[in-house]
């Protein structure tokens, strides 16, 4: 696809490539935002979800009597109250028949499989009273043996979470490319290593929440607090309610306090709260507390990789072989198979591998179910691959930059077919110049200077190290997006998009794309998203897709609208459309402003408003790519890691708003720091979560997150969409574990093989 040049000067109207102030900010800084917990309806009542206190147990009865008799209680819902005792929540991507045996129902029915699993819902006139009453629910739990670790889950004697399935393996996949055995036979060096990535998660600062209201007159349901994929979740909810007409459900997104992969997927509560609203006839509100959030919202990232890499002694890569286990937790959720699917398809990264064999088993265990977290599956495999490469470089005595450069995919070989699949789509790197980015980054970040710093003596026993992580990201799954652009005769523009907001600035970005192709100023544009009543379809915001697909749809609709207006004006003014200019007042002939026609006149035939819509379709993914650089000082006595400098180079094809892209990268980097150094969901031997508060689950604060240096390049625009954009949401996170672990390995002269690099683990490494 040809990338279309902008027709309008972007600076004058805050178009693509500029950084206007965000449209979203004003209410948010004034405390006037409407997050779901801020939204109220007349007659509203409150839900509290009763959760299993045990990681694995059987129960035969739930006694609701005392709860129902409690002050303020309207209803108690258990599996017995659900139609067919509750339908299974389907997967949304990477459908796998085997994994369907492990889907979650909204409420546990006879067996609980993780601490935090919903068992009942209490509805009361206040949240305080609902929680009080929930204490009285009597359930005759009888403990079952737990299985927690991925290796234990596949052991022959392992307790089974679903005995009928006969296994804890929920899904598996094998990818084979090239002649693996021959490649290993030719190797001068084979590296064999096991890598572990710890369980951690998105943890947006706003917990999940919903408010649902049923209108008996119209038999329709409204759900506020939808996020990420409102239209997709509407379809799932309607199906689970047994409603054939999904338009009876209206999903409304309010302000969303961060998503990062976890929020907005269809969880048990996404059925239970609407169901409670229908059952009680009252608007029902539910807001998760943090303790619930850390036990119930998707976890991610827990993988064990056993890898082998074959090389020639000059550092040329011959083959890569990986067999990993992904711990998906107690049930396969909407994205249960997505994470390992992404890991296996993207492990090859930016390098040429004559042969690759990747295989995973995704297992169920008695931990919180898993799903995606920013750069899902890739944070993990970038750590594995980039660590492996450094180990090889150390063994061969080759510089860690040189060994990468030698094996990068050549600029002449794009599009590059990796040979793997992403949810049925071939992984074809759309465009790239990896060596160019490497050269630019080494110069921009003064890598030679960093090497000198590395050699200088550090103060008092500290040890210095440098690490890099080279990665390929992906952007833009879900093959289509919808946009409608509306202009009225006062010159106001409304953009309706099927993309969603998770706080990333989608209103600002789409307004910029619109004005670049419509030609009216930024402040005339309003962006509407996340309401299924006014937007007929949409795929939402995930996987760095909103700018790529949502942006392309807005661009096309804006172009169409401009063309229609100018064609109509051309006829009126007897001039060529190319000689015309559009302003908020109307259309005039360039250089002859008196020859003009007002918007009022132009739109009089269409009641003062014209509208154009576009559905942008794109079957393939875009693949941005980047490099992380970490320079660290490690204190071998305390295990503390001080980050001296951190830098990210990222080619995103085209940058719509440099300031917002910078914000995505520095925010993503902070999350990567959490994953590399701090965050870990631990469990005791009985499966009790030990990290169910922010005192135990360590989120990075301003003291742990250093400033990050950025180099954003636009050397490889995507040929897959007319904007050339690739999405920029995840590259800040993708290689933090890789780069930090490489730097710490360099500092200590020991090979790091697991994350996070907590002080305790660093001290253990020093002693090893």
């Amino acid at each position, binding site marked *: 696809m040809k990338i279309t040049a902008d027709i309008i000067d972007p600076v004058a109207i805050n178009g693509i490539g500029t950084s206007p102030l*965000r449209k979203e900010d004003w209410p948010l800084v004034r405390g006037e935002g409407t997050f779901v917990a801020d939204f109220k309806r007349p007659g509203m009542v409150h839900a509290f979800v009763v959760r299993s206190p045990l990681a694995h147990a059987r129960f035969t009865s739930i006694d609701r009597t005392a709860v129902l008799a409690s002050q303020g209680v309207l209803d108690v819902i258990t599996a017995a109250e659900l139609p067919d005792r509750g339908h299974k929540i389907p997967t949304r991507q990477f459908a796998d028949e085997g994994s369907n045996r492990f889907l979650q129902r909204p409420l546990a029915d006879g067996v609980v499989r993780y601490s935090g699993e919903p068992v009942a819902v209490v509805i009361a006139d206040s949240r305080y009273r609902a929680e009080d009453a929930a204490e009285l629910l009597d359930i005759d739990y009888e403990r079952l043996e737990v299985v927690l670790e991925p290796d234990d889950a596949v052991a022959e004697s392992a307790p089974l979470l679903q005995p009928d399935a006969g296994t804890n393996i929920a899904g598996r996949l094998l990818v084979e490319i090239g002649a693996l055995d021959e490649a290993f036979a030719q190797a001068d060096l084979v590296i064999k290593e096991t890598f572990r990535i710890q369980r951690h998660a998105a943890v*947006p600062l706003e917990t999940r929440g919903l408010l649902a209201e049923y209108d008996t007159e119209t038999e329709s349901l409204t759900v506020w607090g939808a996020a990420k994929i409102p239209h997709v979740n509407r379809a799932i909810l309607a199906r689970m309610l047994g409603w054939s007409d999904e338009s009876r459900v209206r999903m409304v997104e309010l302000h969303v306090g961060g998503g990062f992969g976890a929020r907005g997927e269809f969880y048990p509560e996404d059925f239970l709260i609407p169901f409670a609203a229908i059952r009680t006839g009252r608007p029902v509100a539910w807001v998760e507390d943090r303790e619930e959030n850390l036990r119930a919202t998707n976890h991610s990232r827990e993988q064990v990789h056993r890898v082998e890499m074959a090389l020639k002694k000059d550092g040329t890569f011959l083959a890569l072989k990986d067999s990993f286990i992904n711990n998906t937790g107690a049930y396969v959720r909407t994205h249960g198979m997505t994470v390992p699917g992404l890991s296996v398809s993207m492990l090859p990264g930016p390098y040429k591998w004559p042969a690759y064999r990747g295989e995973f088993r995704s297992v169920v265990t008695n931990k919180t179910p898993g799903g995606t977290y920013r750069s899902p599956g890739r944070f993990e495999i970038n750590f594995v691959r980039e660590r492996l490469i450094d180990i090889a470089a150390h063994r061969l005595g080759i510089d860690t930059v040189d060994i990468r450069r030698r094996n990068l995919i050549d600029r002449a070989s794009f599009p590059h077919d990796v040979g793997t699949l992403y949810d049925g789509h071939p992984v074809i790197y759309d465009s790239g110049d990896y060596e160019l980015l490497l050269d630019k980054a080494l110069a921009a970040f003064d890598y030679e200077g960093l090497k000198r710093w590395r050699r200088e003596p550090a103060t008092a026993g500290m040890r210095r190290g440098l690490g890099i992580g080279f990665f390929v990201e992906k952007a833009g799954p879900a093959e289509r997006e919808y946009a409608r652009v509306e202009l009225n005769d006062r010159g106001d523009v409304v953009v309706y998009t099927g993309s969603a907001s998770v706080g990333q600035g989608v209103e600002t970005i789409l307004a910029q794309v619109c004005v670049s192709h419509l030609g009216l100023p930024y402040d005339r544009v309003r962006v509407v998203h996340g309401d299924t009543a006014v937007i007929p379809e949409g795929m939402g915001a995930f996987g760095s897709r909103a700018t790529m697909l949502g942006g392309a749809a807005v661009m096309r609709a804006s172009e169409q609208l401009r063309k229609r207006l100018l064609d109509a004006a051309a006829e009126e003014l007897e001039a060529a459309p190319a000689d015309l200019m559009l302003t908020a007042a109307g259309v005039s002939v360039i250089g002859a402003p008196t020859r003009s026609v007002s918007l009022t006149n132009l739109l009089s035939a269409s009641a003062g408003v014209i509208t154009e819509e576009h559905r942008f379709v794109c079957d393939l993914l875009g693949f941005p790519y980047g490099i992380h650089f970490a320079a660290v000082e490690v204190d071998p006595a305390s295990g503390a890691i001080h980050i001296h400098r951190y830098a990210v180079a990222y080619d995103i094809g085209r940058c719509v708003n440099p300031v917002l892209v910078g914000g995505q990268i*520095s925010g993503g980097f902070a999350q990567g720091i959490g994953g590399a150094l701090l965050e870990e969901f631990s469990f005791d031997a009985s499966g009790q979560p030990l990290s169910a508060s922010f005192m135990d689950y360590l989120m990075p*604060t301003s003291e742990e997150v250093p400033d990050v240096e950025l180099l954003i390049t636009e050397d490889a625009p995507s040929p897959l969409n007319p904007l050339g954009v690739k999405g920029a949401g995840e590259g800040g996170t993708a290689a933090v574990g890789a780069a930090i672990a490489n730097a710490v390995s360099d500092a200590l002269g020991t090979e790091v093989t697991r994350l996070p690099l907590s002080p305790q683990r660093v001290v253990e490494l020093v002693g090893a």
Partner: protein
Amino acid sequence: MSRRIAVEINGRAVEGEVEPRLLLADFIRDNAGLTGTHLGCEHGVCGACTVQLDGHPVRSCLMFAVQAHGHRIATVEGMAPGDSSLHPLQQAFHECHALQCGFCTPGILMTMEAFLREEPDPTSERIRSALAGNLCRCTGYQNIITAVRLAADRLQNKGEAAVEAS
């Protein structure tokens, strides 16, 4: 067993009949209807619920409403001087892209407003340290530190106290 309390919130007298166990955060949000104060953890770590009690930042999730009886409370809604203007800190956050989802922002603004009264001319390192009690999951903090520094400059040049809406 509810108790009658009277507080002043953003200069307005607010009274209420409350249970002793009602959190101050819930009183502010539900009784006074000021939902700009957000609850992020309800155990005093994240700082999203920070308000000012007699000018000092406190976590409204760690106080009961009855404890605030007779005290003066300030919340984010009281920061801007008017409907079409922003406090210099709010304006600096807007200009420096110091917020993304905006959920943590009110608590950070209340913490930083008090901090700048104590320390009108802080270094970036001092700001970083003063910010460490507030979690932000979106920004990586860098732009927040820049914004606070910008606001400090503007607040010291008093001429620019409130910035009109653009």
